[in-house]
């Protein structure tokens, strides 16, 4: 391993190349690096690019610039674990800042999860998702076919965007309420009411999204909940100052008129909310997550690949299933 400082610059250069859909030249890379707080001249960038070429992580296309190779993409996912430890929360924060949905004007961007299913499974998927709409955030979804220009959809698949619960964090923040997502977890429900979290994973201290972890473990039983009123769903928890709880309540009420819901509990008395720890002086807010609608589909046996907290999308373009 080379010096971590050099390694970090190499990774940052690869990230910049990876974010572009066409080959990128050294000058553009140097400019973007400066934006991100790395002072590296064009010549130094060229030097680093040669190292990346030698390692097989990037390739040169004549004078137009460089693109990333599949080995380079792999390296981006595996390298610098120390930096990626808080990667999940950092990426979420980026999306939180880009959320600008206005509950009064009823317009703006929301954060979405993107799930992929086989084209042939789509009709069945849509039906199952409709049945679980009460345990997601919004009945509105975005549907993307293979030729979509907004979202990459693999061949033979359909992309389904569902409203992500982190949208609330974005909206709370825009209204001046300091908020951070704390945990994702498995919440047990009885008589259609939330009871207690069975397991929690923090949004900090993990290199994999907590909700993705629970989805992969097949730990939900939303089907059971729909049939008998008892089961387990995915939910997440954030905390805000107690003094902001009133404002937050009002926002949740306003959002209801835009078909955005999913609030399960808001509590500040017992030091925990549904079993999840809450610091003194804070209120814990528990919200069901949008991908519960996809958890049902997986429970049914249909293959779903979900990327939680994926991107932002204009809520106005999303339609009820």
């Amino acid at each position, binding site marked *: 391993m080379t010096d971590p400082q050099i390694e970090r610059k190499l990774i940052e250069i690869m990230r910049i190349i990876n974010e572009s859909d066409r080959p990128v030249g050294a000058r553009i890379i140097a400019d973007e690096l400066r934006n991100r707080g790395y002072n590296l001249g064009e010549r130094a960038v060229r030097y680093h690019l040669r190292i990346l070429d030698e390692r097989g992580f990037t390739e040169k296309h004549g004078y137009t610039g460089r693109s990333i190779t599949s080995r380079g993409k792999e390296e981006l996912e595996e390298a610098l674990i*120390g930096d990626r430890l808080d990667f999940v929360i950092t990426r979420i924060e980026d999306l939180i800042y880009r959320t600008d949905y206005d509950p009064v004007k009823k317009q703006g961007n929301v954060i979405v999860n993107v799930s992929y299913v086989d084209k042939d499974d789509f009709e069945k998927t849509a039906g199952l998702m409709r049945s679980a709409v009460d345990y997601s955030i919004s009945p509105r979804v975005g549907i993307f076919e293979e030729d979509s220009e907004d979202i990459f959809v693999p061949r033979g698949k359909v992309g389904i965007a569902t409203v992500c619960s982190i949208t609330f964090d974005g909206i709370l923040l825009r209204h001046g309420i300091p908020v951070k997502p704390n945990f994702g977890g498995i919440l047990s429900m009885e008589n259609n009411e939330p009871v207690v979290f069975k397991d929690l994973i923090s949004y900090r201290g993990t290199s994999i999204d907590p909700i993705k972890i629970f989805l992969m473990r097949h730990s939900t039983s939303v089907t059971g909940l729909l049939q008998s009123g008892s089961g387990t769903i995915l939910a997440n928890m954030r905390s805000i100052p107690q003094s902001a709880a009133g404002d937050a309540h009002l926002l949740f009420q306003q959002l209801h008129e835009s078909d955005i819901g999913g609030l399960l509990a808001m509590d500040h008395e017992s030091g925990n909310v549904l079993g999840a720890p809450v610091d003194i002086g804070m209120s814990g807010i528990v919200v069901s997550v949008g991908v519960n609608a996809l958890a049902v589909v997986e429970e049914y046996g249909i293959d779903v690949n979900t990327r939680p907290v994926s991107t932002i999308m204009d809520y106005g373009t999303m339609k009820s299933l």
Partner: protein
Amino acid sequence: MQDKRGVVQFTSSKIEDLMFRTTLDLKSMEGDIIVNLSIADADDIVDVLEFLKLTSNSGLSVSPFLKVLESGDVIGDLTIPEGKVGIATMCSMTIDGVLLKSGIMTNPKFGGVVQIRNGLPVRFTDVLTYTSTTIDPLEVLMSQDITSVTRMLQTGSGKILANLREVHLAKRDEINSVLSGMMDIGINGILEVGDPNSRVLDVPVERDHLGVVVIGGTNPMAIMKEQGINIRTNAMSTLMDINSMDKIEDFF
């Protein structure tokens, strides 16, 4: 995990409890160790033991100690169900328990996936810290389709489960002597001991600390899973008297 008030318990506090209750004495070879409990179909026991032998010979298990439990046997608060068999194997956290009894406080940081290239550990590629989860990180990572323990066994390159703890450098010499004492009795799951204030497998450590990476006790079960054996593992289940356990070679 929940306590009586229904508040969830994070893995980090569960570990400290188990570390405190570990009583294994390396000299007298007496005392309790921390075990992982796996449940498999009784019909698969021959295959399970074969895989345990294979992984033990390849240095992919923490120790050769194990105990086979029949259906109806009770361990901790669990009874082995009908038609099933239970396999208790040493959990890597036993090492932290033994270090603690020797006066060395470790700080278990996280469980993760380590990339191995040509038999040598290269770096952690995914991690989950003990303070941030209520489910054992290695149990979690085992279910994410990101390990390739079988490939590692076949080709010498792949991704295996391991965990990291930090120790203050004041105890550096004692650590080495306790660790070699453990190796003498067959506990040889130590993957890497870092230098003070230096990264260990690409992970920075706290100031004046060094990192110790130990192979996860659940790697053999990860292989069995990859090979299609129906096996479920409860990591860090309970404690067990080492003298009530057998060694894997006793079965062959």
